[in-house]
């Protein structure tokens, strides 16, 4: 197949994945609607029953109460359908990434610009979610995760889309691959951690009397522990990505391992905020809600770094920050200002 063919196929697969995520979201919302019709529970312990069954989480909040068996079956059906569609969407999403990589000449990893980075990031969010689903009994999280993935994917297609281009020479390094893979995985895990921190804040405000979707969400203490686990996974990966692999690559490409480039600065800001989050969990008076806020600030700095900062600063050398400057000499701008007498 030609490169253009691969690119078109990738775009179609992205659209397909988007439709599947959308259908998955509809199914998961239908599950919520049906669950609502099932009698309101006094104590919401849905997640515990979910924990036992892994995939079969679509159990009403009040598994013991005698209610409409039809509704319950429908609820379970929608829940399972939603997860199944999510799984399918992830497969198609991964296929889209693969095609994107094959469309480049020479073939390469699909993260040369913001569009591709967002495409990869959302893929990893969904994939990590599915991987962690059983282990941490996360089915209750599905509607939010799918919603977030779908929104980011739409943002990528509508706002960030860029035609395929080969990496500039400086980006052509194995350390780049390692650096970006690690950064994307960490981003995905931080995003899941951020979602669970937001839910923690909502749930702990509502308390035991929560209704609707929040009734299905685990108790605050469990959410807090889940957030911690996700962050504890993401933080070392991020450390490796931005403080080891990134600097090694930067040294080889630009002769300095740390240059206070805006991307680097924001990667450090994210790191420091998450270090503060981990501290907060061990500091009296900061546990709980304040720590959760720090986690949210952390995820905000993270996404700002690879979407937002490009609109504020134009001095970044990181290539995907400036899709237009694919030429070989990133330093030319600097040269103009230097005086040679």
């Amino acid at each position: 197949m030609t490169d253009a063919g691969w690119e078109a196929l990738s775009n179609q697969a992205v659209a397909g994945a988007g439709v599947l995520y959308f259908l998955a979201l509809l199914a998961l919302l239908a599950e919520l609607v049906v669950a609502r019709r099932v009698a309101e529970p006094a104590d919401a312990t849905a997640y515990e029953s979910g924990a036992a069954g892994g995939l079969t989480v679509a159990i009403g909040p009040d598994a013991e109460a005698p209610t409409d068996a039809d509704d319950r079956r429908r609820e379970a059906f929608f829940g399972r359908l939603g997860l199944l569609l999510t799984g399918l969407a992830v497969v198609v999403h991964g296929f889209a990434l693969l095609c994107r990589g094959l469309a480049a000449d020479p073939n390469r990893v699909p993260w040369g610009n913001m569009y591709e980075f967002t495409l990869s990031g959302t893929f990893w969010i969904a994939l990590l979610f599915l991987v962690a689903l059983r282990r941490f009994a996360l089915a209750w999280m599905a509607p939010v995760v799918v919603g977030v993935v779908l929104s980011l994917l739409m943002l990528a297609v509508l706002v960030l889309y860029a035609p395929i281009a080969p990496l500039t020479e400086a980006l052509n390094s194995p350390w780049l691959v390692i650096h970006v893979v690690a950064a994307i995985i960490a981003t995905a895990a931080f995003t899941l951690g951020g979602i669970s921190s937001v839910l923690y804040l909502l749930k702990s405000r509502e308390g035991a009397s929560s209704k609707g979707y929040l009734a299905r969400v685990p108790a605050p203490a469990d959410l807090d522990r889940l957030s911690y686990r996700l962050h504890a996974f993401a933080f070392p990966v991020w450390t490796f990505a931005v403080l080891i692999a990134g600097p090694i690559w930067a040294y080889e490409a630009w002769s300095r391992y740390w240059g206070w480039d805006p991307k680097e600065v924001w990667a450090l800001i994210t790191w420091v905020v998450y270090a503060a989050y981990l501290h907060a969990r061990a500091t009296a008076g900061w546990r709980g809600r304040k720590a959760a806020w720090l986690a949210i600030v952390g995820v905000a700095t993270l996404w700002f770094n690879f979407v937002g900062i490009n609109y504020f600063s134009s001095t970044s050398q990181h290539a995907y920050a400036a899709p237009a400057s694919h030429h070989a000499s990133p330093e030319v701008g600097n040269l103009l200002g230097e005086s040679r007498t």
Partner: protein
Amino acid sequence: MAVETRERPAARRPGELTFVELLRWCWRQLTSMRTALVLLLLLALAAIPGSVIPQEEVDSLKASQWQDAHPDLTPVYERLGLFDVYGTPWFAAIYLLLTISLIGCFVPRIAVYAKALRSQPPATPRRLDRLPDHATYRTDETPDQVLARARALLAGQRIRRTDPDADSVSAERGQLREAGNLLFHVSVLVVMAGFAIGSLFGYQGGMIVVVGNGMSNDLTSYDDFNPGSLFGEEDLDDFYLDIEDFDVEWMTSGPAQGQARKFVSHVRYAEDGGEPEEYDLRVNHPLTIGDTGVFLIGHGYAPVITIRDGNGDVAYSGPTVFLPEDPSFRSIGVVKAPDARPQQIGLEGWFFPTYAFTEETGPFSVFGDAKNPAISMQAYVGDLGMDAGRSQSVYVLDKSDVELVESPDGSMFRVDLALGDTVDLPNGAGSVTFEGLERWNKLQVSQTPGRWLTLVGVVLALLGLLGSLFIRPRRTWVRARRDEQGDTLVEVAVLARAGGDDVSTVLADLLAALKQDEQDEQNEQDEQHEREEPR
């Protein structure tokens, strides 16, 4: 404190602190977790302006453009150091306080940890049912059987040595977590030290070298040079380097048509007057000579231009570096001929590697490779302002005392030349010849001492972090004793000592194992009975 009060009974009001106490209070505040947290957040906050405002150290051109565009804000920002955020005293204050806090926090922790390593796991608390995760069950086994099994099950952990007839087992695991935490924080200090060494004793420099030429490593070779404050000129490594040849591969098809790929400089270098060696210098594949790294970070064209003056003498001749402006390598450049007589001559304009022209676009370059090279420049005559002794950028023409050369009829005059062509300037001012085409490489040359220390530091920090985040310290107690009915009452408790740990399943597993083994032994005994029975 009591002693001091007695010495100066009248001077004290309740709540008043002596100076020493005040110091001690400050120290305790500074080294508290809360302060560390606040300082970390401050550090994050303080780093932000440097990412939004152009930094002189990062991109001096952007910084000066910004300053020109904001004449009102610039003096204020300058006073606050906002053009060099990461070198300002207030930024330094934050990380220095953090460092002090870190040292103050961790020196005592190391001592505490060393002591904890040598001491035994703590004695079993009297009331295990006060702990959040505990369980009890009864069995008809003897306490000794239960405790022996508990010891076997907890064999991987540190177990408190007790006298033989004690009624409980106390075990502890995961002490390495604190070691990880200590290693992480100490390594952060190592990283900071390595970074400081690099910025104080290292330097960054850049130069443009025309292919076929070379450089020797002394200050005059550098176009820009940024030394650390403790770097001395004598620290420069003694070597020379010639760029003998340069290859570029151009993409002639596909979506990336026109891009340069795989550019390689074939260099020859020698250190300390030694034997010359060869190296293929590529992007991402730096050359290391002694302590110095040489990096290829860019390339471009240097048209060879000759200017003859009004007297017919050669006033300038040689390759002139033009700076690429876009992916097609349309490049901008300036040629200055201060020796031209009667008037100095300057040229300013573009070089197009593959020249093309349409009415709508004007001249442009179709391709980065030099398929149809041409220059298109404007000529100026007059005083180029080079005699005043002021330093002047070679890429900028000072137009204050020159005038644009026009055709005799007053229409626009351009020096538009294909390779090999010559054009006469109007009014006998001279002529310009586009003689040939050379290429240049932009080299970045730097010394970064301490970078291995930094690398070792972050790797150790990461290892420490993994230990700190994934090792789960726990204490486990099993107590077994006879109750009034003659049964054995077994109490089990597990205590999580790290946040984010959930020991309920650990407790359940331990209970199950304790009981399971009991079952197994029962079964074994039963089997033995069965086997024995036939006899």
